[in-house]
Every structure is written in structure tokens, then in C-alpha cells.
């Protein structure tokens, strides 16, 4: 076996193990946050089995996992067996495969284990290093999630599941477009589809894309929430209103595959936001230059990436408890009437700026100008829209605005 193959296998094993653990513990974190936000204490009991050691409830994911494993693996008689089993596998496999091109750090120094020599360049912290179509691959695979959803809904042979599947796929397809538009600006200004190259260019200039393309960040973040089916866009499930959407008929391990895939989508979305807009592993004055890599530097980069990732995940979880869910028509009009034009605006601005840079009107590397124009466009758009339509955020009936509380109607 060649070192490359071994490296790849080790990376895959680490990745899958790490992701599964991360997903399990993020569920625990989510439950904690949910509890804290609601002024509760949250799960803090399950520790080491058969002892009194509680460890702040860190054993909870294990207990949850065991519970799912020991649940009855019930398959209703009326489902389409083959597709029914296939759906969760499709969705989970696609969600896992996305991580093949996501860099979890940068480079490591040369090292050797048991006589195998590894050069730092070859041991990239990406499972599949040097995939030039990185971003397209990510999008292709995240679109496959739609197949899982619709297969699950269709094969359940149940009208609620089917409608849930349709709603979900409509949402996923609608938000794919603003998501792509949010990214195109970055691809234009970076000139590459590789995720590590995108981080590299941000690290080189010291300007994160969030600063130069705030509009792109806005559009992408909203779309990422919708793609990951997180609140306030969790219409596929809508636990409180629907009976579970496309996975109504699922139970036991098959259900948990869906749930893990959902969490993996959130992890992907958070990682993409960090990598594309917040400079990945880069932090000013902390992560060093590429030509003098030390172990400390490599670990620092991973640490910075993970910290940023955790912050974004925290944001995801807080947003869940901050907003009510959108109605389906609001969801659609947000995608097509608001996010699509905003994404186009961002793209057009970026195209103009990049073109100006290319033909020499702007000096190369004038990221400051980019940022200025980006924020300018965003603020002008915001103020403009606020002037056209006043900042009215309350549509409850009240005096002077029609409805029951109108005095003349009460007197009449």
C-alpha cells in the first residue's frame, strides 16, 4: 500500500468517526442550548453507567444512540420496501460524502510513522485533496439530499409523508439558487472553486469575504439555513405542526440516519460559512505563513477553524429559539423575491469590481475598495427598501390601522 492510500484511509476513518461523534455531541449541545434559552437546566444526568459520576450529562448521546438501536425496527406493511430502506442511506451517504473536499485545517509538517515517509504537502487535511471542482462537488452532493427526502416521502405510501416530501423538496430546490448566487461572488473574486484556495486567498489578503461581500454572506447564510432545514425554515419537519413530514413512517435506526443526516447538513453549512466567508483557518497574526509550517502552527489553524465553526453552530442553535417558523408562502417569496435579487445584486457588484481590477482601473488587491463598495451597496439597498416601504414590523390590528380597534367602527 502506498502512503497516499494509507493516508486517505486514515483520514476517512478519522473523518467518519469524528463526524458521527460530533453530530452526537452537537445534539447534546443543542439540547443544552434549548434548555438554557428556556431557563431550564437541560440534560445533566447521564454520566458513566453504573456509577454516580454524572459528567454534566456527557453520556447522554450514548444513551440516546443505544435507545435508537434497541427500538423496534418497524417497517409498515404498505411501504415500498426497497425505496424505503434506500432513502435514509442516500441522504446519509450524500451528507457524509460532502466532507471529502472540506479542508479541516491547512498543511502539516513532514513526518514519518513506522518507516513510511509522509511529506507535509501530501498529507493535506482534506480527504480528497486538490479537487478542482470542490464547490461544485459540494453543491452536487447537497442536491442529492433532495432525492433522499423525496424517496422517503414517496416510498412511505402515506399522503402526509408525501406532502412533507414535496414541501421539503420545493424548499431545497428554491434555496439552491440563492445559495449558488451567494457563492458566485466569491468564486469570481477568488478565481477558484477549490475550498482551500478560497481560504488561501482570504488568508493572503487578510480580508475575509464576509467583509468584502456582506450581501453575499447574508444571502448565503439564509439559504444555508433553509438548505439545512433549520428553524426558522424547518418546514420539512415542523415537529409542532406536521406529523413529522417525510419521515413520519420511519422508526429506529432508519429514523436516526435521517436525523444524523440533518445534523450533518448543519455541520456542512456551518463549515461552508466559515470557509467561504470567515477565512477558514486564518486569523490575523496567529496562524502564520504557509512556507514555515510547524506543528504548533498547524494545530493553531485547526483550532481557529474549529472555534469559528463552533461559533457559527452556536448561532444556528440560538436562531432556532429566536424566530417563529415561516409560512410556506413566506418561505417561497423570501427565496424568489428577496434572496434571488439580492444575490444577483451581489454578483453584479462583484463582477464589476473584479472586471475593474482585471483591466487595471483598480489596483490589484484593493480588497478595501471591495469592502467599501460591498457595504455601501448593502446599506443603500437597505435604506432604499426602508424608505420605499416603511419599517413596519407589526401587523396586529390596532387603532388607526383598520380592524376591530378602530374607534369609529366601535361607535357605529
Amino acid at each position, binding site marked *: 500500500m502506498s502512503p497516499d492510500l494509507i493516508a486517505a484511509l486514515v483520514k476517512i476513518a478519522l473523518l467518519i468517526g469524528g463526524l458521527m461523534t460530533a453530530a452526537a455531541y452537537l445534539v447534546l449541545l443543542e439540547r443544552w442550548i434549548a434548555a438554557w434559552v428556556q431557563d431550564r437546566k437541560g440534560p445533566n444526568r447521564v454520566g458513566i453507567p453504573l456509577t454516580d459520576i454524572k459528567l454534566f450529562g456527557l453520556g447522554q448521546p450514548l444513551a440516546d444512540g443505544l435507545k435508537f438501536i434497541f427500538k423496534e425496527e418497524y417497517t409498515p406493511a404498505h411501504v415500498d420496501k426497497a425505496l424505503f430502506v434506500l432513502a435514509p442511506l442516500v441522504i446519509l451517504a450524500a451528507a457524509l460524502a460532502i466532507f471529502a473536499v472540506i479542508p479541516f485545517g491547512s498543511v502539516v509538517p513532514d513526518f514519518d510513522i513506522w518507516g513510511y515517509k509522509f511529506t507535509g504537502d501530501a498529507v493535506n487535511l482534506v480527504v480528497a485533496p486538490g479537487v478542482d471542482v470542490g464547490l461544485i462537488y459540494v453543491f452536487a452532493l447537497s442536491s442529492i439530499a433532495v432525492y433522499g427526502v423525496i424517496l422517503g416521502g414517496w416510498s412511505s405510501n402515506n399522503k402526509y409523508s408525501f406532502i412533507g416530501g414535496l414541501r421539503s423538496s420545493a424548499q431545497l430546490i428554491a434555496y439552491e439558487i440563492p445559495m449558488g448566487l451567494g457563492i458566485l461572488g466569491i468564486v469570481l473574486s477568488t478565481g477558484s472553486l477549490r475550498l482551500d484556495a478560497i481560504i488561501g486567498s482570504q488568508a493572503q489578503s487578510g480580508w475575509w469575504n464576509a467583509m468584502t461581500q456582506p450581501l453575499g454572506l447574508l444571502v448565503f447564510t439564509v439559504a444555508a439555513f433553509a438548505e439545512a432545514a433549520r428553524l426558522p425554515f424547518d418546514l420539512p419537519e415542523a415537529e409542532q405542526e406536521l406529523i413529522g413530514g417525510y419521515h413520519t413512517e420511519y422508526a429506529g435506526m432508519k429514523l436516526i440516519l435521517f436525523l444524523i443526516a440533518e445534523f450533518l447538513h448543519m455541520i456542512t453549512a456551518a463549515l461552508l460559512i466559515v470557509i467561504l466567508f470567515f477565512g477558514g483557518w486564518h486569523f490575523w497574526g496567529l496562524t502564520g505563513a504557509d512556507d514555515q509550517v510547524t506543528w504548533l502552527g498547524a494545530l493553531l489553524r485547526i483550532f481557529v477553524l474549529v472555534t469559528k465553526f463552533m461559533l457559527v453552530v452556536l448561532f444556528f442553535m*440560538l436562531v432556532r429559539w429566536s424566530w417563529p417558523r415561516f409560512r410556506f408562502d413566506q418561505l417561497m417569496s423570501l427565496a424568489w423575491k428577496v434572496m434571488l435579487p439580492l444575490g444577483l445584486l451581489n454578483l453584479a457588484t462583484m463582477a464589476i469590481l473584479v472586471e475593474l481590477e482585471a483591466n487595471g482601473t483598480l489596483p490589484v488587491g484593493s480588497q478595501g475598495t471591495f469592502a467599501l463598495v460591498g457595504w455601501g451597496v448593502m446599506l443603500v439597498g437597505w435604506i432604499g427598501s426602508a424608505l420605499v416601504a*416603511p419599517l413596519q414590523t407589526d*401587523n396586529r390590528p390596532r387603532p388607526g390601522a383598520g380592524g*376591530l380597534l378602530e374607534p369609529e367602527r366601535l361607535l357605529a
Partner: protein
Amino acid sequence: MQATDPDIYWITEPQLGLAGNMYLPLFMQGLTTTVKHLFSPKVTVSFPEERPQIGNPLIYRGVHRLNKDEAGRVKCVACFLCATACPAHCIDIVAAPSPWPDREKYPESFTIDELRCIFCGMCEEACPVDAVELTSLLDLTGRSREEMIFDKEKLLSVYDMTQAAEPMKSLELGNAPSK
């Protein structure tokens, strides 16, 4: 009622502005509330180890007790007012001629089915001599249905258990019935 009925008020909700539709002001509002609550003191407790704070034991409606008078006798005079008031019909009293000279009757047996009880406090309200009271004991558990039917001894023992912490409400409220 028809849709054209003049008594119907048709409410038209005011139009949301674009900014309102775009959710951003509301977003900041919501996120601030969430973050504030993230760090605010928690209202739940780790139950068996920690006991919840009871706001006012005088008005808390937990497990019943039968009060005793100064002589250690059951205060109840078996007037059946509590059993009559009880909406859940869970009080069962057997009256007998009292062995003591100061009253006519006393309860030979007095049982409350804690499983049927809805803890409304009507019995406490009804009692003319403040004999039956609801304490602030809140973890009422048992292994069988029979165990949850509290007889006179058990209800009196609840009094012994709680009297130190919770004096009789009539005394506490300063309107003890005059003899």
C-alpha cells in the same frame, strides 16, 4: 350568520413593510431575547437533590394533612362539609359519637383518595374548624393504588411531619377561631 351580516367586523391586518417582511429588525430583537435568557438564572432545579422553592406555603396545595388540637386529638368534628364540597368525591368519612365532651362527633375513619384528588383546596376552604389542610409537600408517590388512599393515621402523621415547618394556616393567618 351570513358573511354579509352587519354585526361581523372584518379585520384587515395592516400591511407589513418590506423591512418587516425581511425580518431583520425582528431578528435582532429575537436574538437579543434569546441571548439574554441564555445567561439568566434557571427556574428548574435538579429535583431529588434540590427542592424547588415554594413561593408561599400558605397557599400551596400539596398533600393533605389532618390537624390536631392542643390535646393531640384530631381536630375534625366529622361535619362532612369537606366531603360535600369536594368536586372529586374523594373524601370518605365515617362519623362516630365523640368520646370527648367538647364535641358531638369525631371521624372514626377519614380517608382521602390522593389519586382522585384534584388538589383544588375546596376541602380546606369548607372546613369550619380548619381540620383538613393542604401542605406544601409536592412529591407524592406510591407503589400501588392502595398506598395512595390516605387514611386517618396517615393524614395525622402528615401533620406530625409538617407541623414544625408549616404551622396551622389559621394560626399563621392570625384568625384562629375563637373557642
